[in-house]
């Protein structure tokens, strides 16, 4: 029996036959129901900026194109707005699939095309582990350092500080120990230390 090869502009694309099964199993979503109607991509607010549209990502998962999918910027740009979830005629929870792909990418330490958003997510979870609450100013400053983008939002940041919208100190819950235990028990990679 000869095997089927998948080729794109840059040559033969590696196929991982276990990947499709893994995504279906972890997400619990029946991806094979997708018949490529594009409803998800047509309604997606960020499809203009995506390298692969949501329907293409679903198709690539079906085909086992693990490396391509996990390296794509599209999986990170997904806003989680649930428009596609509400509209999919086959009732596939596409957001659950995207979340599954992001979680696999983090757990397997894939450094894909989109670098900033994964760093943001980690940085967002860190104050929750430590304080139990979000610490907006800390998060903004940390991202400025990480992305070396000091001026893009400086004007907006100053306006917000002037309006008293960005307090200097974080608030803290009483159950910080319990929060740390939750993070430690689950041992999620995303909820670990900052880079």
């Amino acid at each position, binding site marked *: 029996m000869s095997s089927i090869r998948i080729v794109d502009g840059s040559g033969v694309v590696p196929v991982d036959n276990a990947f499709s099964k893994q995504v279906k199993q*972890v997400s619990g979503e029946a991806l094979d129901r997708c018949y490529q109607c594009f409803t998800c991509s047509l309604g997606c*607010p*960020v499809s*203009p*900026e995506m390298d692969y549209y949501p329907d293409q990502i679903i198709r690539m998962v079906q085909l086992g194109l693990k490396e391509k999918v996990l390296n794509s910027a599209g999986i990170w*740009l997904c*806003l*989680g*707005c*649930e*428009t596609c*979830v*509400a509209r999919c005629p086959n009732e596939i929870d596409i957001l659950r699939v995207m*979340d*599954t792909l*992001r*979680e696999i990418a*983090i757990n397997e330490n894939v450094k894909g095309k989109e670098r*900033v*958003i*994964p760093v*943001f*997510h*980690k940085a*967002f*979870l860190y*104050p*929750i582990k430590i304080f*139990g*609450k*979000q*610490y*907006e100013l800390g*998060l*903004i400053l940390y*991202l400025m350092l990480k992305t070396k983008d000091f001026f*893009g*939002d400086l004007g*907006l940041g100053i*306006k*917000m500080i002037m*309006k*008293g*919208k*960005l*307090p200097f100190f974080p*608030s803290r*819950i*009483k*159950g910080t120990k*319990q*929060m740390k235990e*939750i*993070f430690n*028990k*689950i041992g*999620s*990679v*995303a*909820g670990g230390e900052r880079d």
Partner: protein
Amino acid sequence: MKYAYYPGCSLEAALAKEYDLSVKAVCERLGIELEELEDWNCCGASSGHSTSYLLNHAIVGRNLAIAEKQGLDIAAACPACYVRLKHTRHEVMEKPDLKKQVVEAVGMPYEAKHDVRHLLDIIVNDIGIEAIKEKVTKPLTGLKLACYYGCFLVRPPEVVAFDDPENPQSMDDLMTAMGAEAIDWSGKVDCCGGSLALTKRDIVIRLVGELVDMARAAGAEAMVAACPLCQMNVDGRQSSGIDRMPVFYFTELVGLAMGDKGAKSWLKKHLISPVKLLNSHGLL
């Protein structure tokens, strides 16, 4: 009518203090008692569910377990928190294995006995439009508003579902009852780009620009939001210009229509001041 109030980080930490204050003022006027959820923690927002299924449900589960201990349904103000709380309750009810894992991680019992509600739902459906209308002393006559629901009040429909997922009406009905004109427009449930607000500025500026253009083309003078992320994005990410469109929290306008003295101070927190617009209609 008593609820465990879950303000969420944005409302507590001053980012959306005007929303928090107007929620409390309006609820007091309507006889909705809010007892803050004891020692609540951040819901994890999009970063939680985007990166770890189990961690997301566990940190949200802690809040749900506390509400159960308090013996109250949760009233959430922020739709992003609301949808996370709703999602976890929904998942736990459907998946016994997940329930076991969440209970084990949180170290508190949880039976999903209590519901999670958004304040717009409580105000419109429990108090009722007619009862609220009776309390209006300063109707918002002449004000043309685009009611902006955003994503999580209406999606996913099998989890939240207190209004239509494509063309919701509850905020329109409420604003009409306040004497304003709720215009029909097609951006009601479009996303503002909230979860990319700090990472993909250009995308958010594009999305906000499209929303404001749509609202303006339909004849709106201002937008009304029920979400701190929507409000902050539309308030902060419109390209500069003299004709920037103000965006209110729905509770600010309900408070204003009921003659609440706090209204002026809430509106001072906005980056795009709505004072000129309100004055032009004689509403301040």
